[in-house]
Structures are given as C-alpha cells and as structure tokens.
C-alpha cells in the first residue's frame, strides 16, 4: 500500500520553515492573505503591462496632399503607402508583419515605401540604420526600403512614432494615417490594416486614422541630442 503523503498542518510548532511556522497560526489566514496579496500584485503588474501596451504615441497632422518636395517615389496610377520606422524599435516588427500581409493582398494597387529614420544624433554612425528590421523589410515583396538620414522625410510628413503609416490615393490625397497594429508590438487583426486593405480594394474605409504604437523616431519634432549608443 502506498503511504499517504504527509500533511503537516498539525505538526508541532517550532519545526519546519518560516512558512510552516506562519501557516500554523490559528485561523488558517496565512494562505488566504498570501493569495490576496499575490492577486493584487499580479493584477497591478498586468495592469502596468496592459497600460504600456495600449498607450499610443502622439499623432501629428500629416500633409493632406503629397508634398511636392518629397524625395519619396510616388506613382500617379497607384496608391502610395509610406511607413516610417525606427530601425531598432522592437514594436515595429509587428508592423512589418502586418505590412507584409497588406502587400500580399494588394501589391498591384499600391506603391509602398519603408523609411528607416536615422536620428541626427546618429549621423556619424555609419550603418546604424541597417538593422534586423531593415533586413526584414527588404524581404517584403514590392516594398521599397530607404533610409531617412536626419529624419528629413519624417519631419516633412510629421511622423514622430515608429510604425506610422500614411496612405495617399493616386491623386495624392491623404486617405489614411496611423498604425497598423492593435497595440504596441502586437501582431494580428487590427483596424489599421483592415482599413488600408479596404481603401485599396474599395476606395473607402471605415476610419481615416488609427493610433500609433511604437518607439519615438527622434526627429526634429522631438529631437533628442543624445548619443545613439545604448547606455
């Protein structure tokens, strides 16, 4: 016969660990208190994480018409999509995944470009912008990948958050601005992607802007004169 595992609830005091000593107190309140305290801490932690993930960055007003001085190639026959990305933003990997889905569905109707912004503070760091995200972007079919040294184009389009997507129609009018992830770095179905696909396929969308989740690009709009090295 297999012996029954011991239950030391009734073991004499003065033996065992501190947990045993406290847990033997009358009333059996130790475990409920532990569970409540643990629940509070877990809830607080999850709340912080959720809040962080769902806190969007500032969304500035982008030019309604395609800027004539922009160096980005635009097609008069197709829609033009521009993505502004921070080369090292981990959240933008999800944005590239969503963009890949868009290009898979609508590559023939859109001319897409991805601009990796190189902050002015990193101007003297050659190749700083050629990150894993750059390589991932180059893997997306029909997506043109450019560097944006000093964030010139980003400033032109009022982009301050990595992951901002602008969609101009063939006439050069701004039809959509915002992010294409549901939260920070979160892949999956989202309103931005579905709206862009809707615009490209049907010419109209439910919304014209969504929230943008990502790292700050460090453009002139929010220039930081810090070193580009990690602390």
């Amino acid at each position, binding site marked *: 016969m297999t012996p029954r595992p011991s239950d030391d609830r009734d073991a004499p005091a003065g033996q065992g660990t501190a947990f045993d000593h406290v847990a033997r107190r009358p009333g059996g309140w130790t475990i409920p208190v532990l569970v409540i305290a643990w629940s509070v*801490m877990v809830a607080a932690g999850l709340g912080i994480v959720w809040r962080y993930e769902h806190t969007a960055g500032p969304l500035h007003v982008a030019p309604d018409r395609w800027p004539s001085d922009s160096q980005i190639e635009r097609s008069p026959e197709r829609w033009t999509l521009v993505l502004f990305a921070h080369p090292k933003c981990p959240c933008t990997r999800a944005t590239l995944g969503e963009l890949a889905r868009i290009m898979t569905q609508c590559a023939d109707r859109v001319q897409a470009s991805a601009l990796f912004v190189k902050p002015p503070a990193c101007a003297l760091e050659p190749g700083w912008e050629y990150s894993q995200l750059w390589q991932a972007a180059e893997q997306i079919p029909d997506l043109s990948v450019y560097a944006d040294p000093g964030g010139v184009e980003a400033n032109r389009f009022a982009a301050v958050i990595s992951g901002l997507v602008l969609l101009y129609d063939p006439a050069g009018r701004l039809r959509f601005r915002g992010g294409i992830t549901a939260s920070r770095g979160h892949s999956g179905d989202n309103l931005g992607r579905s709206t862009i696909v809707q615009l490209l396929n049907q010419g109209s969308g439910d919304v014209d802007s969504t929230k943008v989740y990502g790292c*700050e690009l460090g453009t002139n709009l929010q220039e930081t004169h*810090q070193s580009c090295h990690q602390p």
Partner: protein
Amino acid sequence: MSSTVAATPDAGDRRRADEILREQQQLIHVRTDRLFAALMVIQWVAGIMAALWISPRTWSGAISETHVHVWAAILLGGVITALPVLLAWKRPGRVVTRHIIAISQMLTSALLIHLTGGRIETHFHIFGSLAFLACYRDWRVLCTATVVVAADHGLRGWLWPESVYGVIGGAPLRLIEHAGWVVFEDIFLIVTIRQSLADMSRNACNQAQLESTNQRIEAEVHRRTEELRESVEETARASRQLVHANKALEEQNKELDQFTYIASHDLQEPVRKLVSFSRLLEQDIDGDLNEDAQRDLQFIVDAAKRMRSLVQALLELSRVGRSAMKHEPVDLEQCVDDALDSLELRIKETGAVITRDEFPTVIGDRTMLTQLYQNLVSNALKFTDEVSPTIQISVTQNDDHWVLGVRDNGIGMKPEYAERIFQPFQRLHNRGEYEGTGIGLSICKKTVQRHAGEIWVESEPCQGAHFRFSLPIAEPQIEPTAPTESIETEPVELAIC
C-alpha cells in the same frame, strides 16, 4: 478462491476502495503540483529569455532603455510563479494549490503572449496548459483555468477590444468564439477525466477486494500453519516418547539377554553335576532299588538331561545374539557343504534326497551361516513322515538381496503357526513325537536378523515346509559386535515342537 475474488464487495471493501482512491488521487495531485512547480520555473526563465531576445530595449530616437517587457518578464513573471511554486513546495496536494497553479498557468500564457507580440503560435500555450492541467484528473481545475482565460479576454476585450479581437465592433461574438475553442477542449478533457476517475475507482475496488482476499488467505495460512506446527510438535513429542520407549526396551532386552546368558551359563555347572551325580547314583545303587524307585530315579536322570539340553540351548541362543560377528565374504556353497557334512550320518539314516543350487558369496559370519543351514536341514530331516525326505536347498536373486530357501516334503504345519515357531521354546508337537528343545528356529531367526535379513516359512499341513530367508547383496548392516566370547559350535537339538 476465484469465487472469493469475484464476490460482491462488502461495506468494508467499499470503505477501503474509497480510501485507496483518495490516496491515489492525493498522490496524483502531489506529483502534478511538483511537475507544475518545475514547469513554472522553466516558463519564467523562458519568458525572460524571450523578452531579452525579442524586445530587449525600447528606443526614443538615439537613446534606449530596458524594455518594459524585460521587467515584466522578470518581475511580473516572478510574482506569477512565486506563489504556486511556494504552495507546491509547502502544501502539495491541497485544493488551493492546484487552483492557484491553474490560475498562474493561464496568467503565464497571457504574459508569454504579450512578450512574443501576440504571436498566434504562443496562443497554443493556453491549450497545452489546459491539457497539462488535466493531469490533475480534477475537472474543477479546468473550470478555474477557463474562467481566468475568459476573464482576461473579457476584461481586455471590454477595455481594448481591438487589441484582443482585431476589430472594434462585434467583440462579444469574438469572445464567444475564442472561449468556445477553450470550452471545446475542456469538454473532451473533462470527459477523459471522468473516464479516468471511473477506471481508478474500479482499480481501487479491485485492489480493496484483493487486499481483503489476501488478508483472508493470510489468516487461513496462519491458522493452518499453526495447526501444522502443533501437529509437528505432537509428532515430535510422540517420536521422542517412542525413542525413549525403544531405548527403555533395548535396555530391558539387554538386561534380559544378560540375565539369560548369566542364568544359562551359571546353571550349566549345577545341571551338569545333577546329571553326573544322578548317573553315579544310578550306578551305585544299581539293583538295590525296587522297581518303583528305579523308575523314579530314571525320571530324575531324564529330567536332568533335558534340563541340561534346555540350558545349553538357551545359552546358545543367548550367544548368537551377543557374540562377536565377522563381516567377511562368505561362500555359501561351503557353508552348505559343511552343514551337510555334519549331518551326513542323519542323512544316510533317513535316506534323504537333497538337491541344491549354486550359491553366491555374501558378507557375514561363516560359522553362523553354516549353523543356520545346519539347523534348517536338520529340521527338514526331523519333521518327516514315513516317507524319505526330499530336501531342496535353493537360491534366487531379487533387486538388492538374495532369497535362500530350504524346502522339505515333511509334515508341514498350519500357516497360523508361521510366526510362532520362531519364538523360543515354542513347540507344535509333544516331546514324545519329535525330540528337541524348541530353540533352533529362534537361533535361525537371530542369525538372519544379525545379517540384516528376514526369515519366514511357507507351509501347509502335510505339504512340507519351505523356510526362506533373505541376505543383502551389498555389504549388510550388521549389528554392533558385543565384546563377549565367540560362539561355541556345540550341536543344538532342533525342533518345531
């Protein structure tokens, strides 16, 4: 026994089955608690590694700092892991432990999904965890886990519906869809758990009955062992008593033999004097006595002679049983020759016809075996009717001994006397019919016994007698030799009288 095993369990068996089932469930709970404790530590470490790899730092232009995901993996993951591991360590098997583990496992799934950027592959962690939680074989644990999943989805779907469902509208329907897949798995797991519990219950019932049967068998074995032990003790006690009685009997026999020897030996001298002086007296007063006195004196002389014969026979019997005995190869052919030579005169007088086989060599005492044949042939010559005796001296071989025989065509006897004639001084006839002391066959029996053999007679009245005896082929088990004088080879008068 099989009927006992297959019997319907009684109340005691059912109680024991419940006890066994609870013990097994407790063991499963404890074991699974500890497995989950190890798994959660691994998941915690894996979450930290995933955060460090996927999103180590967050950037603001050219500056960066540690990503919130890294801190969440370390701190929040640590908090989520701490309590279930603590309970699994300190309170394994308790209900609260496995429910806390279920909650923590689902929270770990949520955290890992966050850390991996909501990858669809990471969502499989939820379904895998549910299957793992089914190891508890407690459907309530699955309910707790499912409630946590539903609460997480419901709360976040309410606060940030796009984050969870990817759309702003239709969140309730997506919640039902997501929860439906979890419930789908739960249903199958719960059915499996119920079947498993039913199997465990049956096994516990069988084990309880088996234990009960074993206990009965052990009790029966114990009882029978006790009986056997008592029986063995009784047998040993009886054996000891028998040995004691045999020893006492041997002592008495020895004393009797000693007495017989001493008595017969010491009586020889007075008997001899009695015979001698009665003869002298007869010579001295020869003719001086009247006829009655002479007849009385003759009675005295005859009685003295017979007494001398009896004393000599008794002494001979005693010597055969006590004398030193040789253990050497003896050619029975020579023994028979010697016996017939000593009886040659008698054989001629009776005109007996003797036939004989070829005899082997045995281990024994030549003198004693010669006298054995002499006694048996003499007996055959004596107990004859009017016809000339025909004597056949034979030998046959059995498995491990020789069977030797002396057959005659004499008067024979009834079979019921076959044992009696080997006892000392037992006679079947009056002294007037056949002379003798009645001690000869007793000497034969003693001789054969000392050669580890047996002697017996096959006879019918008027059909002759066939005396047979056996001698071992191998070296015989000879009785210990007595430190007394050797046998005197005085002729002994034989009789079956």
